[in-house]
C-alpha cells in the first residue's frame, strides 16, 4: 500500500473584500477503503502539434485499470501562451466527447475518472503550435 497525497491551495488576496484561502489535502485511496492507491501511469509528457481531436488517455491502454473506482487524473498544459489552450473532454475522439474545459498555458487540473468503456480522456488543441502536455493517472 502506498500513501499518495494531493494538496490544493486556492488563494487570493483581492477577489473579494476578504481574502480567499482554501487549502485541502486528500490521500488517494482505493474505492471505499483507507488503502492507498498503488498504481500509476507515472508522469507522461506528450508533444501536441495538431488541432485534431484525439485521445490523450485511452482506458484500454492503462494496464490493469478498473473502471468506476476512485481513479484520479492530473493534466497540465506546460505551454506559456495564455491565449492558446487544450480542450479536455471525456468520451471517444471518434465521436463527440463531453467537454470539460480549457487548459490554457500553465493551467492544470485534477479530477476523478470513472473510465468506463468509451470514456477516454480526449484533447483538442486550439492551435497547432507544439505544446507539451503532462498527465498522470492514479488508479486501482
Amino acid at each position: 500500500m502506498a500513501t499518495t497525497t494531493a494538496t490544493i491551495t486556492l488563494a487570493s488576496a483581492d477577489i473579494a473584500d476578504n481574502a480567499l484561502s482554501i487549502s485541502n489535502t486528500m490521500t488517494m485511496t482505493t474505492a471505499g477503503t483507507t488503502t492507498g492507491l498503488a498504481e500509476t501511469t507515472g508522469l507522461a509528457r506528450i508533444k501536441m502539434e495538431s488541432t485534431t481531436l484525439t485521445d490523450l488517455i485511452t482506458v484500454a491502454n492503462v494496464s490493469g485499470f478498473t473502471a468506476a473506482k476512485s481513479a484520479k487524473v492530473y493534466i497540465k498544459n506546460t505551454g506559456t501562451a495564455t491565449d492558446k489552450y487544450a480542450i479536455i473532454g471525456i468520451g471517444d475522439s471518434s465521436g463527440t466527447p463531453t467537454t470539460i474545459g480549457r487548459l490554457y498555458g500553465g493551467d492544470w487540473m485534477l479530477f476523478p475518472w470513472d473510465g468506463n468503456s468509451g470514456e477516454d480522456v480526449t484533447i483538442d488543441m486550439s492551435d497547432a503550435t507544439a505544446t507539451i502536455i503532462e498527465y498522470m493517472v492514479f488508479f486501482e
Partner: protein
Amino acid sequence: MATTTATITLSSADLLSDNLSLSATQTLHKAGTTTGLDGIQYERLEVPAGDVYDIVDATTAGANKANKVYIANKHTDETKYIDVYVAALNIGRLYAGDWMFIPLEAAAATQDIGVEAISAAQVVEFALVHEGKTLVAS
C-alpha cells in the same frame, strides 16, 4: 483585476521506487488574457442522496471561458462518495475527503456540473471562479 492562484502538490514516498514530488501553480486568468478572473461563488451544502443536483450552472456569460471549479467531498466515512457529472456524463467519484479542480467550458446551457450523493447525504464544498455569470431576473 484580482490575482488568484491555484497550487497543487502531489507527493508520495512509496508509490514509485523514487519519491514523487510534483508541484504546479497557475494564476487564474480570463480566457486568452493575463487579466485575473474576478468573479467567485463559494458554497458549502448538504447534498441529499437519491438524485443528481446541479451545483454549478452553465450560463451564457460564462460560456467558452476559463472558469475554474473546485469541489470537495467533506464527508468522513470512506465508504461514501458522490458522483460528479458534467452535462449528463458521470465523470467520476469523489470519495469522502477527496477534492477536484477543473476548468469548465460551459459551452452550452446543459453543461452544468451536477453531483449525486450515493447511499447517504454528504456535505460538499465548491467554488466557482469565473469571469461572467448570467443572472436570472426575479
